[in-house]
């Protein structure tokens, strides 16, 4: 299996603000992370809150410029890309964020939000409208509701819209940052099923960030464990769950309520 995503030695250091105290408060939020994610696979990224998962996600997508290291997604390294090539990078890799309430601009119709990426890609207006309708239907939202504003949708519906917005870019790689953690359990299952369906249909690759180990165990092909900005353990999902090498990993899995067998179900 080819690797789609190669992350090598990635670090992100946060500097303290202010003119005077610049040196005083530097935090190594992501420290020398090296990961590879295979094409059309799901990598689960677990760790306690504050372990640097979201920071890693932002750095990988170059939403925040990493302090060191390199990223290559589908052969594109944003550090050396021109403006035009950067547009291509933005198409290949997208993100679905945790809080569906805040993920959509409250002042715009959901159709406008979904169309944002298309617009950035220079898709003409009529084609854009057609595509938005398709995307909404694809995630299970009736196209006629495109005119409505986010406040008129439930949390699960909003998450579907957020996914549609990401898909508008025709990405190959999606970072799913806690995509279901703020939803009801029944809704969670629907969204997870939608994501798995989409992966299948569109040959997507996911980096699935969650603190829900059972969920990660359920959908991941491989798992990386993050602690204080570092990857402390990574490998095949079944191996990591069955034979955690690190005390930290063991602790994580022991403290989680068991819903699934240690042998994760595969799709």
């Amino acid at each position, binding site marked *: 299996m080819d690797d789609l995503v190669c992350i090598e030695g990635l670090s992100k250091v946060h500097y303290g603000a202010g003119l005077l105290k610049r040196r005083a408060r530097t935090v190594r939020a992501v420290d020398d992370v090296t990961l590879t994610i295979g094409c059309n696979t799901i990598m689960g990224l677990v760790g306690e809150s504050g372990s640097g998962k979201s920071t890693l996600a932002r750095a990988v997508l170059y939403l925040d410029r990493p302090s060191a290291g390199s990223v290559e997604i589908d052969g594109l390294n944003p550090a050396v890309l021109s403006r035009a090539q950067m547009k291509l990078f*933005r198409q290949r890799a*997208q993100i679905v964020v945790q809080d569906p309430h805040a*993920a959509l601009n409250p002042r715009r119709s959901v159709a406008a939000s979904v169309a944002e990426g298309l617009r950035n890609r220079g898709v003409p207006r009529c084609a854009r409208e057609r595509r938005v309708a398709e995307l909404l239907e694809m995630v299970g939202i009736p196209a006629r509701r495109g005119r409505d504003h986010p406040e008129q949708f439930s949390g699960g519906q909003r998450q579907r819209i957020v996914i549609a917005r990401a898909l508008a870019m025709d990405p190959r790689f999606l970072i799913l940052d806690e995509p279901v953690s703020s939803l009801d359990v029944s809704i969670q299952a629907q969204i997870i099923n939608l994501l798995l369906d989409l992966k299948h249909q569109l040959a997507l690759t996911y980096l699935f960030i969650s603190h829900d180990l059972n969920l990660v165990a359920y959908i991941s092909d491989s798992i990386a464990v993050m602690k204080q900005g570092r990857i402390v353990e990574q490998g095949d999902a079944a191996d990591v769950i069955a034979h955690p090498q690190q005390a930290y990993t063991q602790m994580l899995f022991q403290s989680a309520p068991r819903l699934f067998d240690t042998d994760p179900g595969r799709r």
Partner: protein
Amino acid sequence: MKPRIATAARVVLWCTLLYIGTLALVAIAAPLIAPADPLVQNIPARFSSPGTAGYPLGADDFGRDVLSRIIFGARAALLVGLVSVGIALLLGLVTGLAAGLLEGPVDSALMLLMDAVLSFPTVLLAITVVSVFGYGLPQVMAAIGVIFSPLFARIVRAETLTLKQEPYVMSAHALGTPLRRIVSVHLLPNMLPKIVVQCTVTFALAIVIEASLSFLGLGAQPPQPSWGLMLRSARNYLLDAPWLAFYPGLAIGLTVFSFNLLGDLLNELLQIRR
């Protein structure tokens, strides 16, 4: 989601809007509405008391119609409010966005500058500016605009810093939306409520400062009808012709009160909405 505020507040809000709307109409249509030319003197009629034929609100020390001068004075007041708030808003937006988006040393330097401007007593600073650049309404408007720009800059900066962290702004970034569009589509519309509230409050302040400076003789220049200037000449006749001070005083008071009230109500409205 309709905001739920008390009926009383709703009534007050409509009264306020009605007053401001009327004032704006009066200012625009001043030449059509005013019963007399606000500049024409009629010495024999000087100090006519309110109710005298042809002088519903009395006549001033040159025999000019007080009502017409109040009506034309609304123009000066609203013009000063609009222009100075416009200048303050524009400067505040530019500096606030620059500080909020660039962060780091640029942010620190810009905010230091804004704090320095804010730390001066407003009216004193306005007097200083006007003394240097000359008397007159244009100078006053520019001075007020510059002096109040930090108020806007601070709000815009704080909102920019907050909104930048909103997931939808991050998503827009990931979608490759250019900065200019992120600002115009995601940042500005979402900070608009706070800016509008600040605008109404600043509008009221600007009117007060214009009146103060005109009262001191530094703002509007005679014979231009301005409420502050009317108060200035009225203070010589407080005992003999109190209406000369009463009506422009009332106009200033009502207008400032209305804009402040509007600001408060809007603030409340938007808070409930959040």
